[in-house]
């Protein structure tokens, strides 16, 4: 029957669509996220009239640069089928650590590498526990969460102001393009996104990340360097945590040990909304960026409405649920095909 149909030319376009869908089914959730983002932005513009302004959109990136960086690291981890609960507290720890060091007069060119190294160190700990001691990522990164939060309080129980010019420069400088602007923190975040996307798409390391998410055992039997890659994704996530600590410190002008409580959940929600499968093997860094923008837009809309910020989490929770159910349906369908 199908043989007859394929002879007409229109249907061969249909076939092309079908071939695309079959080859690239994993992009569909990300496309859905983009659609939701567009609907949100247009809806907000229609509702408020002054939402889609260069100023407002520039602020979306500025206010969520740290979240974007965390989401990139989290994407690597989740695509391998793992999870990293430590990112929020790692960010708080490196932030307060940096603030404390700057306050005691240590030069910035030492402080920044130490912040990054601090994040990477906790990431390494988690990665080693996961890879070499067969600890579930959930539990290992839980230890990282406790450790980061506790260490943040060990550094200081209260907030520390940052007055270091280079750090503040990151936030206060505005590169203007018409009415649009971007800060160095925003540029850093976008560079991290680009780097993450490139690494995932065209390096053997990135492909190994996907292979591990597909089947870790297979990846190992295929002779890929599974152990190194699995540790590395947590190091990358920790490094992103350290960098996010820097960005958040610059953004808020202070280090504070209570920063980032619950941020890990926001990050996971953004990554999932962006189309990454929590079971691993599928997902895109660029999708996670879309997820962050969806999150950012919802937050902004709620503050535009003057509503309780508690709604943010309720809506993000609902959106997360929607995506999970959709993903579940997609996976169920592709399972049935085999």
């Amino acid at each position, binding site marked *: 029957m199908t043989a007859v149909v394929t002879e007409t030319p229109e249907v061969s376009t249909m076939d092309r669509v079908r071939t695309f869908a079959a080859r690239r089914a994993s992009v569909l959730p990300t496309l859905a996220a983009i659609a939701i983002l567009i609907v949100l932005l247009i809806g907000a513009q229609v509702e408020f009239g002054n939402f889609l302004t260069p100023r407002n959109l520039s602020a979306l990136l500025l206010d969520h640069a740290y979240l974007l960086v965390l989401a990139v690291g989290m994407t690597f981890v989740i695509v391998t089928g793992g999870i990293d609960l430590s990112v929020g507290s790692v960010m708080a720890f490196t932030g307060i650590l940096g603030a404390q060091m700057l306050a005691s007069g240590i030069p910035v060119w030492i402080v920044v590498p130490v912040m990054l190294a601090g994040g990477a160190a906790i990431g390494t700990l988690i990665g080693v526990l996961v890879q070499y001691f067969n600890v579930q990522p959930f539990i290992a990164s*839980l*230890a*990282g969460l*406790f450790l980061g939060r506790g260490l943040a309080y060990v550094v200081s129980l209260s907030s520390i102001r940052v007055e270091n010019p280079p750090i503040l420069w990151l936030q206060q400088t505005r590169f203007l393009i018409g009415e649009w602007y971007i800060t160095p923190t925003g540029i850093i975040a976008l560079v991290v996104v680009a780097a993450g996307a490139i690494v995932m798409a065209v390096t053997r390391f990135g492909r190994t990340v996907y292979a591990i998410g597909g089947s870790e055992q297979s990846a190992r039997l295929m002779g890929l360097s599974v152990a190194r890659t699995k540790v590395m994704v947590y190091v990358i996530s920790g490094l992103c945590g350290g960098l996010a600590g820097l960005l958040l410190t610059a953004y808020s002008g202070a280090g504070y040990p209570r920063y980032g409580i619950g941020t890990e959940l926001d990050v996971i*929600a953004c990554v999932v909304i962006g189309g990454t499968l929590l079971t691993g093997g599928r997902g895109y860094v660029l999708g996670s960026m879309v997820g962050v923008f969806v999150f950012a837009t919802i937050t902004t809309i709620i503050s535009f409405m003057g509503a309780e910020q*508690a709604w943010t989490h309720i809506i993000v929770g609902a959106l*997360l649920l929607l995506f*999970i159910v959709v993903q579940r349906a997609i996976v169920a369908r592709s399972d049935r095909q085999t």
Partner: protein
Amino acid sequence: MTLLKHRLFWPVAALVTLVVVNVIANPNFAKVTMRDGDLYGNPVTILRESAPLMLVALGMTLVIATRGIDLSVGAVMAVSGAVSLTIIADSPDPGSLGTVTVAIVVAVLVALVLGAWNGFLVSVLGIQPIIATLVLMLAGRGVALLITGGAITTVTSAPYKFLSNGYLILLPVAFFIWVAVVAIVALVERRTALGMLTESVGINPEASRLAGVRSRGIIWAAYMVSGLLAGVAGIINASNTMAADSNNAGYLIELYAILAVVLGGTSLMGGKFSIAGTVIGVLTVTTLDKTIQFFGVPPAQSPVFFAVVVVIVVLVQSPRVHAWGRAASARMRRTPSSGEPPTGPGAASAAKKHEEVAA
């Protein structure tokens, strides 16, 4: 040797060691005094303060046995605290037993509904438990904040306060509450076939389904129990502070509960579970918390110690460390008799093989 092999040996040993260390460091640690016919002192405080974690961990044990996890317990606690305190605060007579009863019943029912929601996502829609409960973990506190109108509701109500601060015979009410709940849960699980069927579902859901086990109902029930117990925990917690602090009530308790369950010897991979182990695990966590405070560490910094504990616990359970232990003991036995070099290839390969078998 059989004692060493008992699944509760290591959990009990950890708790006993912790207590012994405390008593040696400070003999006052174990001191119990009698005042007005009630007992006071550190051990009593531990038994009292264990109550919320105990209830949450108990529910978590059942959920973990089904191969699941319930991250929403902290948020459910916040909701149940917010519901009960808001009802009491809005009533004309906050101190009456009737008001408090209504508040508690409504809060527990709400928690049960939230648990049922989690169970629905997991057992009917087939969503991964971590994710399914993440939804409520994210949204739950938002809901609690909306209930209290964003403020921290405080109330004065003697009967409500009695739940966590009152005493029955010699010991705190909160202690009797958790003992009763543990007894009920243990009886239901082990005197019926529910325990075995839960383990079966947790180990192999598909085989269980084909054997005619009503997996869906069992999994759903586990999340409902977890929600229900988290609700009760939320009430005890709120009764302790007499304030509905939606941001901080039950904060991180899901993680402490998971830690307690794992400390008690129940694997996170699901299947075999131990209620006695969880009780011991919870007491260990609470005792450790007290110990840290006893040594003068600010409570905010205690997560560092819990991080160390988590790492130690997972390392002790890790097959690689077991293999190292076996290799080391094999060397000790071998060296005197045969005089072989201590790092024989056999030891290394035995370690490698064990890992393989475990994997």
